[in-house]
Structure formats: C-alpha cells, structure tokens
C-alpha cells in the first residue's frame, strides 16, 4: 500500500515538500513561517504579473512583490545594523537619542530563499517562464531541501521545468522521481567529496585559523599569512563542500542543480575569480542587478560604478556588518581596476607572455594574493584586528623566529592546507576526477567509500555549522 502511495506522482511532490519543510522546521523552528509567507506572497504575485494586462500593471505587481521580499530580508537581517549606524550618526551630531536594538533572530537561509523567489517573479515579468500550476510546485522550488540553507541559488526557469519532466510515459504530467543507479553513484560520490571537504579539511583547519584570528595582535606576518591561507582553504572547503552535498543529494532524487564552484583558486583575474567562486550568486548579481543597472553598455565610468555597486551589495548580502562590506568593496575595487586597465591599456592583455604557461601561473599567484587579502576582512569582524592583520599580510615583517614553533604545534592543520593545494593541482591537471571515481567498478568504488567514510568518522571534530548558514 505504502509503495502504491509513494509511486503516485502527486504524492511524491507532497512528500518532497513535506520533507523540505520538516528539514527547515528542524533547524529553524517557528521561523519557517517566513519561508511560507515568501512562498505564498510570490506565488500569487507571480500569477498577478502574468495576468496583468498592461506593462505598467506588470511593473507595479513586480515592484510590490520585490518590496515584500526585500522588506522581509531587510527587516530581519539588516534592521539592527541600520539602527547601530543611525545611533553612531546621532552621537556624532549630538542628537542625544539612541534607538534600542531589536535583537531579532536571523532566519536561516533567508538570503537564499529570497533570491530564489525573486528569480521566479522576475522571470515571469521577463516572459521567460509561465507561473507554476500549483502552489505545491512553487513551494518545492523555494524550499527544495538539499540546497535550501546555503544554495546554490536556484533559478526558477532552470528548476521548475524539472518538476514537470516526463521521464516516464504516463498521463500525469508531473515528474516521476526516479532513483537511477548512475545518478545514485555519482550523487553519493559527490556528497562524499563534499563531506570530505567540510568535515576532513574545513573543520580540522578551523581551530588553527581561530587560534590566530581570535586575537591576532602581536602575531607575526608569517602566522597571519598562514592563517589567511588557512581560512581561504577553510571557507572554500566549507562552502563548496555544502554545495557538493546539495548537488549530490538533488541528483540522487533526479534533479540537476547548477555547480557553484569551479576551481576558484586558479582564477587569473578578478572577473575570472567571480566566474569560478559562488557562481550562482555572481551570476544572479550579474543578471538581476548588474545588467539592469546598465552593465557595461553605457559609459566606462558607469560600468565602474555598476561594478562597485554590485560588489558592495554582494558584500552586504553576506551579512549586516562592515567587514563584509569591506570585503565586497575590495573585490569591487579589483574588478574596477582590472576593467580600467583593460579599457585604457588594451595592449596589456594582448601581451604574449600572459598567454604562456609561466605567465598564467604568475597571473594566478598575483590574483590569489589579492583574493586571500580580501579574506581577512571577511573573517575578522573587529576593525583593529582586521587592520593589524592586513598590515602584517601586506608588509612582511621578516620575524621568523616563531615559525618552527608555530608549525610544530599545528602540524596537522598546516599539513591539511598543503594536501589541499596538492589535490587542487591534481584536479586542475586531471579534470573529471569525480566522474572517474563514480564510474569505478563496484568493488573499487566500495573501497573508496570505506576509505572516505573512515576518514570522515576518524577525523570528526564535532558539529560545526557551515559558515554560509549565517547568510
């Protein structure tokens, strides 16, 4: 009986939605009401935009829908930050009035599902998709559990058609969710790689990074640089690990969600970095912010302003704190300078040296120097600590007496950082490692699973939240 019910396609969708809501309720408790509100709000505004008779009506509906989404995000995520800034501003002008903070709980994943929802209404407005037929379908898109809390950010036009794929013949037009052997193997392999990144690398490097950045004052340049590199590895493994788990879990259920990372530490320019790092966010910002602002179709100056604005908002999206804004502005600055040099000195990009292997390696090293510099404000909230660490990173102090001790007491995390970069080079030189592993014959694949799972279990440090859960 159960099997018959489960095989019913409509039930599959309800089951998927139930599982997603249960998962969200499990981690967020009553804050699930915000997710449900966003879902209902955009489902009906999607219909209204579609049914609007004039473009003016469409625009008004879209603006109201966006105001609802961004208003909710702004209220829960940024209101205390805004109050603090207002109070500081008030003190500066001696207004003698302090607005008390609201101390609101930050709803998990609000930044992600708000952006999911926006893609839906905007896509309908742009005539790229039709509204979903049922609220259930739309609710699955917003709350699809593998990627709900930390992405990748889904596009309605990419995901919604998958819910209606006719994989098997049948009069019902809903998708039959099929667990296919190759999807299962590939999905599990991807999830295992994700868990290895998170639990083996990131969680084991994190204590070393924390030990330096808890209070970096007095630390020498070598320690700061090592901790910065450590944090770069930690955040990459943490976030791309989550994305791999999400993509793998979705694939097992037969859904394809876009990749989020493509070897970002091999980027050779700022724009190249943003084509490789958090791809779903950078492409979202490009399509829904940069291009509507005019992109690079207007004057040079306007392009630079657009780049700076987008990266400022991208930084702010990560959290209501100045350190994320500084991180975003730094990357905005890199993009503007890169663009300016390309515009003013086009001959530079045509120099043959940059096309050679050694030229590319040098470009990558220089780019990564700046990428890792920007990780310092991302990691350190305290302004004095941040400035101190950035100074030590940029101006090497040649204080080398403590290097031996630092390495001797942190052999394991430093070793992991080294192993990470070696593996990255191997993966870069031999792409499709994941596919190769998933296509191993069953016995070899089982040995791979046992080895990987043993590593996960034997080096388990305890429950550590994913960094991007906060965003």
């Amino acid at each position: 009986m159960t099997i018959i019910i489960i095989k019913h396609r409509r039930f599959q969708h309800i089951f998927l939605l139930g599982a997603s809501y249960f998962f969200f309720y499990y981690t967020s408790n009553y804050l699930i009401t915000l997710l449900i509100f966003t879902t209902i709000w955009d489902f009906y505004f999607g219909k209204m935009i579609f049914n609007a008779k004039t473009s003016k009506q469409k625009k008004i509906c879209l603006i109201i829908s966006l105001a609802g989404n961004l208003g909710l995000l702004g209220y829960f995520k940024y209101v205390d930050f805004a109050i603090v800034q207002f109070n500081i501003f008030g003190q500066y002008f001696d207004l003698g009035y302090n607005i008390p903070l609201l101390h609101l709980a930050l709803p998990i994943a609000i930044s992600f599902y708000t952006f999911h929802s926006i893609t839906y209404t905007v896509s309908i407005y742009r005539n790229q998709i039709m509204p979903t037929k049922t609220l259930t379908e739309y609710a699955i898109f917003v709350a699809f559990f593998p990627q709900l809390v930390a992405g990748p950010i889904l596009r309605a036009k990419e995901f919604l058609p998958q819910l209606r794929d006719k994989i098997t013949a049948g009069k019902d037009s809903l998708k039959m969710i099929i667990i296919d052997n190759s999807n299962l193997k590939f999905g599990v392999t991807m999830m295992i790689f994700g868990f290895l990144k998170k639990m083996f690398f990131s969680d084991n490097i994190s204590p070393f990074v924390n030990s330096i950045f808890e209070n970096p004052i007095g630390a020498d340049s070598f320690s700061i640089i090592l901790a910065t590199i450590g944090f770069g590895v930690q955040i990459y493994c943490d976030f791309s690990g989550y994305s791999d788990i999400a993509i793998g879990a979705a694939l097992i259920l037969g859904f394809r969600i876009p990749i989020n990372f493509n070897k970002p530490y091999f980027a050779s320019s700022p724009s190249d970095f943003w084509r490789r790092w958090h791809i779903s966010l950078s492409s979202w910002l490009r399509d829904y912010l940069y291009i509507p602002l005019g992109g690079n179709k207007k004057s040079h100056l306007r392009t630079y302003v657009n780049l700076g604005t987008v990266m400022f908002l991208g930084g702010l999206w990560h959290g209501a704190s100045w350190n994320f804004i500084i991180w975003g502005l730094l990357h905005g600055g890199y993009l503007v300078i890169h663009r300016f040099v390309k515009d003013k000195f086009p001959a530079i990009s045509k120099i043959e040296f940059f096309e050679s292997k050694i030229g590319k390696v040098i470009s990558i090293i220089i780019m990564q120097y700046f990428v890792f510099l920007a990780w310092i404000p991302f990691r350190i909230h305290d302004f004095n600590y941040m400035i101190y660490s950035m100074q030590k990173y940029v101006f090497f102090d040649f204080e080398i007496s403590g290097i031996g001790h630092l390495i001797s007491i942190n052999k394991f995390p430093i070793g992991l950082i080294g192993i990470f970069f070696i593996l990255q080079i191997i993966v870069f030189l031999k792409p499709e490692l994941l596919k190769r592993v998933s296509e191993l014959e069953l016995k070899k694949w089982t040995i791979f699973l046992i080895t990987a799972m043993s590593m996960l279990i034997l080096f388990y440090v305890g429950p550590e939240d994913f960094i991007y859960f906060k965003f």
Partner: protein
Amino acid sequence: MFLETNRKYLKKTLLAIFCALVISFLILGLLIQNSDSLNYKKSEYQRFFSEFNSEENLILIIGSSHVGQLNTELINERVSAVFPGYKVLNLAISGDSPNNRVNMMDEIIRLKPKMVVYGISYRDFDIDSQYFLPDPKWIFDDFLLFVFKESRQLGVITKIDPNGLTRDIIRNISPESEVREKESEQITFEDTPFYTFVNKQFRIANDSEIREDAETDLKIEGRNRISVQFHPLFLNREITDFKSIINRLQENEIRTIVFTTPLHRYYLEHIPVETHEDFLNILREINVLFRIEIFDMTEKYDNEKIWMDMDHIAHNRQANQYSEDIANIIIMGLK
C-alpha cells in the same frame, strides 16, 4: 519513489553504501575500544573506586571544573578541625554534567558517603538546542554515545571525540609528541583525583584579561550573549538526570546539598534574563521536589579579584574564600 531502471545494479550500489557505513563505524568502534587514553582514564577511575577503602566518614563534592577549582586540602583541614575523622574528596570532572555524572552513581553510592555536595551552574543544564526536536547537529554525537555506551561507564567521557583519539594514535607513533609535553605539565591532587590542573589554573587573572577572555568567547560565537539553552525543560535530559542523581542519593539516605557555582560579573552580564529566570525555576522545582538545601553562590564573588577566567575561580591561596565557604556549608550540614 523508488522505481528504478536497473533494480539489480541499484541494489548492489545500495549494499555497497551500507557495507561502507558499517565497516567505517566498526573501525571507529575498534579505535574506541582500544584507545589508550580512554582505557587509561577508565582503568584509573575503576582502580580508584575499587581500591578506595576509607575508614573515615566520607564527604564527596561533585561537579564540573567550577568545582574542580576548589582547594580541597583547605576544606579538609576546616572540616576535620570541627569533625575529626571526616574526609572530603572532590570528585569533580572537567566538562561534567548530570547526564555524564549519572553513569558514576553506582560507584558513588558504593562508597557510602555521609554527604554529597553537588555544585551546579547554568551550563550543567545546557542542552545546546533551542528546538523541541533533537538538534540535528548533535545526532552524530548522540549516535556515537548510543553505540559505544560502554565507553561512558563511570562518566569517563562526556563526548566521544574520534578526531582526538585518531590524532592521539598518530602522535603516539612519534616519540616527541606535543601530547606528552602537555601531560608532563599536568598536576593531580590526591583529594581531587579526577581533575587535572595546569599552570594557568593557579593564576589570578587581572580584570582586563578576564574581560578579554569574555569578549573573545563572545566574538568566537559571533553573538553578544552567552548562549545557554534549557528548553524545552520537560525534555531536557540534564535536568532529568540531575533529578535522578538526587533521587538515588536520597533513596540511599545520603545527605545531599546543592550549591550554585560562582561566576564572574562579565559572565553574568551576558547571561540573558530569561535564562537566569529559567535557572531559578529549575532550582525552585528541585528544592520543592526533594526538600534539599540549595546555596546560591552564583553572584557571591562576581566582583572579587580571585578569578582565573570569567567562570572559574583560580586555585590560589588568595582565592581561598570560595573553598572556605564550601567548608562552612559542609560543617553546617554536618551539624
């Protein structure tokens, strides 16, 4: 949902995943069973309880590191001056909580103490979850504890730490290990057998160090309040186990006194009001239910210069007033 195109291959793949899970957990099981550090601790505890045969009237102090910091030698002097023939033993364990301590109750009762003095604080009832359902973050930990419950006997560990065990094994391969260096700095007192001291614990920190410690703690967690979660009270296993401990002591006619351990004002300033209220409610309920004395010492020294950090009083002569007060509580209880 499970309509597959190739049932045979799918079954084999699922079997492979299951086998990999079982084998990897078996490896962890073997590691835990053969862990030198755990077995060493467990055998030490077993030896203590099996060999302990005091003719004297015994008074036990139990609790976490907050209690471990007491000067038990001084308490013994004060108590035996008034009641000769009485001996005080401090069985504090670092990171202890009622859920851990409950595993040691058989051994404690076998010692037939005249009195048990239990020091508790906010964190003893912290279940680290704000939800009605079990927090998914702790599912793995709970699973390990369930599977390897043998390792919890005598309250040896509060949490299984696979990473620590694995790295201990790796370190032990190398003769000059940092673990051994650390071990050589540790001191254990005869009257506080399960609690080890390092140099830092003897030193009184100055105000700016304590403030820095508090700020660092809060900064790491990225919040401005100390997060202690009691809810939901009726599902809080720490509270249930605490009641079970008191109940067992009373069933065996062992006089029981509870005191709340002192905390520095920087700690108290960051405890949310609702948490404080909940803690008081827990104490009131225990007081009514078991009719036992509860001494509230939480704020007693909050401004004194006797602290090692924001929740531990230093084990130092200048900080002896904490131990003097506990000695007085015991003396009053015996009278």
